[in-house]
């Protein structure tokens, strides 16, 4: 099969990045990370668990991919944590393995910004707010994803850190930080991070060139190994994903 969408490929790439037994948390607009988690469970990670935003549902398996993180269609779920308990565990810092996050701006060190573009007091663009992104450093690692790969989204330095990434210099001490951002997934490419915490181009999606990606990125990624082509979805991955996404949320 070759008629997959960029969003489907993103879900598949994220799914591959999960390990069996991990616990994943996600926030608003959960269709994409939820698809990735369910695909991982259906393939190589049957013991992966995921928590869907404000609902607190644990590994829900509805017959479609819900658009909202708090809707009644997040059912059935094996169990549900009250939201305040999810908040506690996010602060505790050893309960969750992967945080799936994004931002209006994402910078070269994996910092995310959901609050304000421009000056905070007089923003050019006011974002919705940060919700739980300050807890990013408390999960073992984070996966950053966005459907907007543009120079406005991918910037050298976010205007406001609302979701902490890697320390961007030796003066930044982050004593309890864990792995931090480990993977960035966009409709064009994937990035990982070098030992200084700076993003570098890992793979470009089929049909996209390295130049396309660099043009869409507002900073110069760190040098690294020659980017490879993102492996295409296998038939098995696509068939399984589309059974999960019966409503076609990732195909629009």
């Amino acid at each position, binding site marked *: 099969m070759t008629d997959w969408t960029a969003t489907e490929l993103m879900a598949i790439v994220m799914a591959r990045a999960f390990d069996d037994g991990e616990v994943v948390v996600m926030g*608003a607009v959960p269709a994409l990370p939820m698809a990735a988690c369910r695909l991982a469970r259906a393939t190589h990670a049957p013991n992966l668990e995921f928590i869907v935003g404000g609902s607190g549902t644990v590994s829900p398996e509805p017959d479609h991919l819900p658009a*909202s993180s708090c809707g009644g269609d997040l059912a059935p779920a094996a169990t549900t944590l009250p939201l305040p308990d999810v*908040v506690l565990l996010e602060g505790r810092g050893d309960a969750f393995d992967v945080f799936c996050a994004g931002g209006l701006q994402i910078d070269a060190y994996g910092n995310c910004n959901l609050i304000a573009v421009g000056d905070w007091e007089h923003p050019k663009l*006011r974002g919705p707010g*940060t919700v*739980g992104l*300050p807890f990013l*450093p408390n999960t073992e690692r984070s996966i950053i994803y966005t459907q907007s790969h543009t120079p406005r989204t991918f910037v050298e330095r976010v205007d406001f850190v609302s979701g902490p990434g890697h320390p961007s210099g030796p003066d930044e001490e982050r004593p*309890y930080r864990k792995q931090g951002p480990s993977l960035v997934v966009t409709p064009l490419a994937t990035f990982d991070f070098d030992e200084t915490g700076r993003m570098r181009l890992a793979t470009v999606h089929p049909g996209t060139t390295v130049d396309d990606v660099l043009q869409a990125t507002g900073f110069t990624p760190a040098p690294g190994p020659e980017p490879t082509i993102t492996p295409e979805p296998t038939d098995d991955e696509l068939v399984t994903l589309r059974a999960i996404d019966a409503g076609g949320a990732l195909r629009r």
Partner: protein
Amino acid sequence: MPARFLEANEAVALIEPGSTLGVGGMQLAAAPMALVREMVRRRIPIARLVTSPSASLQADLPIAAGLVTEIVSPYVGFEHLGLAPAFRRAAETGALRILEIDEGSLTHALHAGAGGIPFVPCPPGVDLTDIPGVDRELFRRVVDPFTGSEHWAVPAIRPDTVLLACAVADERGNVAFDRFPFTDREMALAARRLIVEVEEVVPAGSLADRAPGTTLPSFLVDAVVVAPGGCHPTEYPGRYGRDEAAIVDYLRSAKDATGLEERVAELVAEDEDAYRARRGGTS
């Protein structure tokens, strides 16, 4: 005392103009819109609006109506449907003071308010963001007397009045949530005055089998307003879905400031029954 059953206009008259108001509901679910609409109709000014970790129309509509001076909220938006137009415009023009806060700090601040706990030192995370640095009102430094280490802290939050949507009330005014309580119970416990809109009323004793943590006893509830479908256009999880067309319509009307003003004027010109008739029945 058992909670009083009031009409929406009587209930929102309990909100003191210029006080701190908490509104429940999370993302596009369980927003107490029947109460918020009535508050907008009566043009009750709110000095400080405190929301759940993620609010949508229950914050944007009062802001659109020009009723809100300050907001304490980790998120105002419409998830996959887009940004919050009135919130965004008010923030960008400086018409709204935003007390920046994150989900964790807000939840802990409400928990502290519920428990007479004066303030809460923040768990790790927010200290690595720019959030605590922008305003000294909600974030200050405190030294842990046990370890000597320094942390950000947030003060207890106790809204003067809280508006919530619950599934049902029994005849004595005990109320029950359905599937997702979100942080609404924390907000209820922190409230100085609690007004709850419910989908329906059930006989006394009907809530006895409900699990702990899914109900609130009547002595915590000051007023109950029966408002079937009152969360419209947000959903009540498990009872009715959200009306995305109505939300999209609201967002479209916001392309310019006058569009939103017209929406607010339309709302003010009708009562909740008329609103319900106009939107058609989702319940």
